[in-house]
């Protein structure tokens, strides 16, 4: 009896393992890119990728079937990143684009070095977009999510997604042109 149970447990573990491997093969590269663009640091992205997939493995029981899988995995990744960014007090540090005023171009001190060292305008501009806006922008533009999928992933309404993407674009454009051009109004 004990042996039978152990066997079943072992089989279940093997199945879990195989499922995880399939998920990892399919999602590790896009998720890593997503996380990297979200946090802007490869080393940290690798740590977060690991953390994300540890959570994926531990919550395989609640893995949705079919089309729901992609938002599910991305939601775990996004929440993991937000947790860490919040833990490191980055979210509150980074500027927030407001409808009533200009976005503050303040950058975290540690980022400044990287910013001038990298000299990659797009990457730099993206860094200046607040994470809560950056996530929907990346999901749509780079990862091809529809607004509905983004809403599922981030737990927002579609209207909020629409608003955030638009604000992200404005912030991104402003950062990209370094405040040189006027915003479209």
């Amino acid at each position, binding site marked *: 009896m004990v042996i039978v149970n152990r066997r079943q447990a072992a089989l279940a573990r093997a199945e879990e393992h195989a499922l995880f491997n399939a998920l990892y093969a399919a999602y590790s590269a896009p998720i890593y890119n997503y996380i990297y*663009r979200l946090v802007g640091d490869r080393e940290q992205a690798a740590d977060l990728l690991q953390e994300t997939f540890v959570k994926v*493995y*531990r919550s395989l029981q609640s893995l949705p079937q079919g089309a729901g899988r992609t938002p599910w995995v991305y939601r775990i990744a996004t929440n993991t990143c937000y947790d860490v960014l919040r833990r490191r007090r980055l979210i509150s540090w980074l500027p927030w684009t407001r409808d009533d005023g200009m976005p503050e171009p303040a950058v975290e001190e540690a980022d400044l070095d990287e910013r001038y060292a990298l000299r990659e305008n797009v990457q730099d501009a993206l860094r200046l977009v607040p994470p809560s806006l950056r996530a929907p922008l990346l999901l749509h533009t780079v990862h091809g999510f529809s607004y509905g999928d983004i809403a599922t992933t981030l737990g927002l309404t579609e209207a909020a997604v629409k608003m955030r993407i638009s604000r992200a674009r404005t912030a991104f454009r402003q950062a990209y042109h370094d405040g040189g051009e006027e915003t479209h109004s």
Partner: protein
Amino acid sequence: MSSVPHNNHPDSPTLSAYHDGELRGFARAEVEQHLTACPRCRRALSEIAALSQALRDLPRVEPPRDVRRAVLESVSAPRRRGRRLTWGIAAIAAIAALIGGYDYFAMPQNALSPMKAARARHSAPPKPAFSPYSAAQSPSAALGTNSGGANSHAALQPPAADRSAAPVPNTSAGTSAAQARLIVRSGQVDLRVRDVQGTFKKVSAIALQQNGYVADSNNNVTADAGSGPAATLTLRVPAANFQATLDAIAALPHTGLTVRSSSQDITDSFHDLQAQAQALRATRDQLMALLHQTHKVGDAMSVLDRLTEVNAQLDRVQSQIMSSSNSVMLSTVAVTLTPEPKKAAVPHAKKPSAWQPGHAFASAVGNVIAAIQAILTAAIYALVYLALPALLVGMAALLWRGFGPRMLTPILAGRGSGHRGRNRRA
């Protein structure tokens, strides 16, 4: 930014959603119509398109290879956080395994730790681990003669028959005995005999009779009586014939006999190994499937790398399974043959009932030494086991200190307090 449409210009979110193909029906038609007439909105739209393209053109990065393994390690050992800690724990495990392995091979059989050796002393170990008195103290006084400790085996080749005639064991006989539980049996027979060479041959013959073979033997023909075992043999016999082999050896003519046998249940670890193998096979199959699907050379190479890694792991696990099942099917019997000592060579050959103050003193000293050694060994273990975690915790604290203040600096600088902020400004 404004969300108020002037002159029927669509607001930013609407234009953005239009670009993304998220507008339907009337709203879409309205924007389309407006665009035909408004160059400013067309420019805004093309700017959105250009920025989106710029984002899509950002170079893709490849995830590091070790992440997947780190994930699996951290899910198999719960409550790990971060790769550094995972590696630290892996390092501790490796060191513990090294220490354990060293102990296992460095200490005599049945004496994995000095504590255990001290406890096992009364069951007459053939080779004392450290106390020169322990063998002499043994209740089976007939055997307690190798107080010199080290045995000077001349390492002569055993008779040719022993090595050449090792048959392939009849393995099917052993399996039926251990179908429900997987038991590894091993026995130790210490014989004191008058004719060491004759007994040596008889023991070898018993191994063959029981469908087994002599795995290892050592026959010191020049050994003097009283200088320890003159010959040792290691027999491997089918598990079913284990008891018969012990009985047959015990039935040989002798003047002193100690028989010990032990069994170890490896059912659980065996099933673990099987599950591991199964999981690895599943992974391998998936990688194979993935390999057929990949079209890029780079992808195929990384899948191949993983495949090689998985195959190597699978091989290791399978060889562990093989050796485990081998040790279940074939039991081990270690035989030592000690020549009958001359009366004069044995200092404590008096009647055992006589009062022996010197002997008692010696054994007391031996016990104290054994106890001190055991305590010291435990202290060394504690030191080694605790030093690394302490080091890691220290490093984690340093890291935290390294990161923590840097994150806080902007606040401190903003409020004009904290020397770090001031230093940076200067």
